[in-house]
């Protein structure tokens, strides 16, 4: 699975879940994903409850996420919780802590513990 495929799966899970859409209604954010090995940029945008993703840079990001592409793919496909690489220093995030926690909660609610 590529990172883009993983992101698209993540987007589908978010948008098909009515409770998540409701939860994210007041959470509009632009997230830039920066694989530090391939440098192949991707983005994730949450806009009034609806999530979308794609390749390339995003303007004025609220959050920057940096990790090897393999780890980013594993996180957004649900194979790995973000906490494990985060606590190991393999996943670096820049942005507000509430947003970082919100992203972790989304993965928790979609894929469980």
């Amino acid at each position, binding site marked *: 699975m590529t990172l883009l495929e993983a992101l698209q799966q993540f987007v589908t899970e978010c948008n098909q879940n009515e*409770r*998540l859409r*409701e*939860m994210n*209604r007041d959470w509009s954010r*632009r997230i*830039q994903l*920066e694989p530090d090995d391939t440098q192949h940029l991707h983005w994730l945008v949450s806009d009034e409850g609806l999530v979308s993703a794609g390749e390339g*840079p995003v303007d*004025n*990001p*609220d*959050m*920057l996420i*940096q990790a090897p592409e393999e780890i980013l793919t594993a996180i957004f496909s649900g194979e790995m*919780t973000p*906490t*494990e690489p*985060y*606590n*190991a*220093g393999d996943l*670096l*995030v*820049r*942005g*507000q*802590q509430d947003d*970082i*926690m*919100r992203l*972790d*909660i989304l993965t*928790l*609610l*979609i*894929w*469980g*513990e």
Partner: protein
Amino acid sequence: MQNSLSRVLPLRTAVSTSAGLASAAVNFLAAVEVAEYAGGQSAWLAILVAGVLIVFAGSNFSELNGLFPSAAAIRVWIRRGVNDQVSLVSSFVYMFTVVFVIAADAFVLGHTFSRAIPAIPALLWILAILALVTWSNSRGIKVAGAVQDTNAFVLLGTLMLFSLMVLARTRHLGQFHYFHLGSNWFEAIALGIFIFVGFEWVTPLAEEFQDFRAIPRGMYIALGLIAVAFGLFSLALTVAFPHVHLLAHSFVPQLLVGMKAMGKFGFWWMAFVTLTTAMTTFNGGLLSASRFVYALAREKALPSWFSRLNGRLVPQNALMTLAGTSFVLAIVVYFTGQYLFLINAGAGVESFMYALSSWLVISLRRRDPKRARPFHAFGYPVVPVIMGVIFLGLGVEALLTPTGPSGFPWSLVFFAVLLVLMVIYVLVAIPRLKEKKPGLGQVSKGSKGV
């Protein structure tokens, strides 16, 4: 990461967070204890020396923070620099330090308000304020950054102003021995470390700053402000009340300085500042510690029960457990009056953490030499080695300092028991937790919007 973020924190917040987290209400009592061991008026010098030593620890934290700017901070640094088990044990002990500081601040708050308004029992004050902060945390209500910012500067500004007023009103200032080093001066420095405890807890905010240099700058400015404010406070206290040992049982030295400076207004202003300081300690401590417990539960280092969220996406079980533990500890401390035990244990744990920061700087330079370091620790490798040894010695000294008339170092026993329990937990319980079949992520029923 080269891209710029749309919302970032300013340097002012780095300063106020570092100063605010270090400026707990229990620091007033710590200043009295430092003065007792320093032998009187030279307490300011012990606090200044402790502050200068901590600048070097700050330099270590700055390098580690630039290397891995993460809210998981010590969890990441120790895992990378030593191993996962040591990282978990240290993280748990560090988390308990937050609970100690909350309990100690509750003790000071209770005594302050039972003195100001005797009709209301101290325990009721402690319960009411802790419950209010816990409730607002559980509702996802955050103390606005501006309020948190303001409180740190108001506290430190008040201490400086009131202390200077007391000094200005004291006659025959020349009669005192400001540079007299008593026989327990090393203990005084060891306990002086406690005044600065928590200055480095600004590092978990690294992700919210655009410029990595803001954290080191913020820490250094905060250390300077704390050293000046509490140095002046200890000086005013020891000059106004030369028989320091009599102050140890007043539990409200800040109110006495307030009275000396500005009479009744000074008394009530200090009571107000104590209240806001304790509330920001409770708020900051519970907020950060509950998120930390949540993260540990997410990686299965704690039971998944701690990762349960309420409808406002707050880790409710983690928050309630921490608040409950703090309250129980505060009650025990209040009835036994053993607050020195918390100060000594806190100073010991932090000194060991500062010693460990030296080890981590050296270890990570060897293990990960090519990784970008926006900030380099002072005088590597000689200074980190010397500082590591000094902080190790200060930590042992703080734990060996007696907590009562018997002269027995209960803080050392407490620390040893806590350490052994954490080691057993990490080596025995966590592997079993990680073997368990994963369950589903939970959010409480009836939650808003989920």
